[in-house]
């Protein structure tokens, strides 16, 4: 039952703003309870920094239960840390050893510029979404819910795809900084439902153009995205997007 507290060395990326060069700095955090979450460990570190008149480390986070998609850093070279199917806020300190040095880096991609320290700007995702990540319906002007039948299999698959929380780990982990899994998940979610079919072509077309304009890389099927995705979205999404794209291109 009794667990021993541990000491952790955190080597973390510090960067004043987008235009300043960053660097790594190492901090010591003592007396870390293994039941702590990774972010709570950073909280403790920040409290120490504040008390010592230092500047706390900025990192994005919000719900702290793995659903809002706000948090996300690369821990020891892996987006969202070593455990699969989790977000950064779900990483627990018991995954690390006493005396271990943890390397913490922000998401790195041209379309995700660093705002400060570990905080990056992910509005590129919103811009992609604005180009077609929706079904064009007006409030109120919709059919009775029951009139749209959706085969269970499609509903389940669409749900698998819709589980994306937009955290950007796919981009961070991709050797090419590609956003294919994110866009693929969205295209697949809506494309798998009968409601989404009427504008399927327009959707994939416009979203892909925007994705390219943002400067994401191309997917070369490494599959790192799937492995780090906290919602374990399969790269089937990317293949489906490509099929939709091909259909749109020739049709």
């Amino acid at each position: 039952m009794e667990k021993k507290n541990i000491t952790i060395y955190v080597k973390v990326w510090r960067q004043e703003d987008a235009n300043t060069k960053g660097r790594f700095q190492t901090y010591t955090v003592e007396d870390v309870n293994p039941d702590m979450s990774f972010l709570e460990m950073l909280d403790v570190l920040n409290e120490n920094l504040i008390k010592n008149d230092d500047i706390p480390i900025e990192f994005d986070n919000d719900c702290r239960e793995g659903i809002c998609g706000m948090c996300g850093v690369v821990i020891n070279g892996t987006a969202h840390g070593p455990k699969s199917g989790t977000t950064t806020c779900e990483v627990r300190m018991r995954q690390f050893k006493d005396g271990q040095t943890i390397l913490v880096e922000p998401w790195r991609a041209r379309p995700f510029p660093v705002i400060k320290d570990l905080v990056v700007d992910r509005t590129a995702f919103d811009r992609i979404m604005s180009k077609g990540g929706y079904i064009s319906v007006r409030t109120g002007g919709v059919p009775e819910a029951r009139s749209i039948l959706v085969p269970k299999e499609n509903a389940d698959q669409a749900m698998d795809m819709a589980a994306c929380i937009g955290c950007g780990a796919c981009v961070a982990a991709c050797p090419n900084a590609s956003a294919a899994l994110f866009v693929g998940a969205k295209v697949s979610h809506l494309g798998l439902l009968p409601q989404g079919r009427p504008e399927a072509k327009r959707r994939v077309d416009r979203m892909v153009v925007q994705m390219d304009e943002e400067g994401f890389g191309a997917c070369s099927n490494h599959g790192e995205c799937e492995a780090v995705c906290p919602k374990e979205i399969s790269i089937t999404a990317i293949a489906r997007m490509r099929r939709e794209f091909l259909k749109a291109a020739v049709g």
Partner: protein
Amino acid sequence: MRFSMSLFSSIGKKLFMGLSGLMLSGFIVVHLLGNLALLNPDRDPFNKYAHFLTHGLGNAIYVAEFLLAAIFIIHIVYAVAVTWGNWMARPVGYAKVTNAGGTSRKSIASTTMIYGGVLIAIFTVMHLYHFKFGEVIMYTTKDGQQIRDLYAVVYQFFGNIWNTVFYIVVMLILGFHLSHGVWSAFQSLGLNGRRFTPFIQGFGYVFAVIMGVGFIGLPFYIYFLTGGAQ
């Protein structure tokens, strides 16, 4: 998007790379089959086959060569464009990258496609220089035809240890390239399915091994088993 523009999108580029890659895979299968004739101690079948390709098809061979070259070039140009874009997409790299493991298919092969590809492209030019545009030794077949003895050129070439080692190394790289390239091509074409994808991934490996072993087999056979003697 206009159709012509979609060819230059990140997905369009990969579509073309996948498609051209599969075509090139088809080409090397034919090439490998042709190579088998070199294992025959009788040089005539191989030389006749080579002669047929260069002289027996009329102008069709120029069309075929042109198409093959075009596919090659599309594959290379798009590869360079895609890779350049990918490099640009991450101006500041990570201090440390750990492979995520699990379902990831990231491998040495998948991360070195461009390097392997460049080597193979250089190799291809050399290969053409060695053989297609190499020394022309004429001889008379048993049935009295006066044709080029490409068989002899090949045997001479692989009588040299360095040539042999070089070819074996490049063919190893080709195998690597294919081990990621084949299934990846299908994925790039959007051909993915619960049952199909595991199959094609397995097939890709088997294909890569067959091609690798097949192409390595010939220089290996010539140098180590025949010593280059014909």
